């Protein structure tokens, strides 16, 4: 299987994640899109790891997954705290820092 197929798939998945962040207004769906982008990058890392026969790519994927788990836990806690204050998950209504 050609390496470029995996990289192209990774690019497509990353773009879907970018579109999700840009198009959707629900903060949880924005979060899911960020996770999809992380997954797309992980896929290309594993593909490169296999193509070079180097284990470091998979180690990096392992660390990315750990950071993604930590990010999801803290991020969802922030969403809960925001929802408690604004009763909304719309990112347009979370503009407290806007001047």
């Amino acid at each position: 299987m050609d390496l470029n197929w995996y990289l192209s798939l990774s690019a497509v998945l990353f773009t879907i994640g970018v579109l999700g962040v840009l198009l959707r207004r629900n903060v949880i769906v924005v979060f899911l899109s960020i996770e999809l982008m992380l997954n797309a990058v992980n896929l290309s890392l594993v593909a490169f790891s296999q193509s070079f026969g180097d284990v470091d790519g998979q180690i990096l994927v392992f660390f990315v997954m750990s950071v993604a788990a930590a990010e999801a836990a803290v991020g969802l806690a922030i969403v809960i705290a925001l929802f408690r204050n604004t009763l909304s998950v719309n990112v347009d209504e979370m503009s407290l820092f806007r001047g």
Partner: protein
Amino acid sequence: MLEPFLFFVFATLAVSGGLGMLIARSPIASALWMVMGMIAIAGLYLTLNAAFIGVVQILVYAGAIMVLFLFVIMLLNLDETPRLSAVDWRKGAAFVLGVAVLAQLLAVVAVRVQGAANPATTGAVAEARVAATDVDALGVALLTDHAFSLEIIGVLLLGATIGAVLLAKKKLV
């Protein structure tokens, strides 16, 4: 050939999972589409002979992270987002930007990376490559070359746990 067949099956599932996540109006449906995409990506890791990463993908992503998402969505009791009445210019600009990102990424993919071979299929070279990246090699590298990073990740996860509990509490102490 089994491998291209599996690749295209899982690739289709992963892309449709992503698109379903993007299009679904209910956040629960979005999260469930995403679970399908995550499992498909785990299948892709298996076609790349990265069994450990594939299993961790299912355990951590499809298992832990997505369950956390679903739990929060159900906790917040969200309604479906209203159907879009008109496409405003911001959506159009976002779409154009997304297509530009895709074009850039594919342009980079089109440039062949020096020394990058195709992921392993069969043969002695492929077997050596798989042996260099199996669970044994991964564990040895993780606990020798990357031992310090592993400890830091442990501290990070502890900090994230404490931070999440503090943030989600009703009143900050």
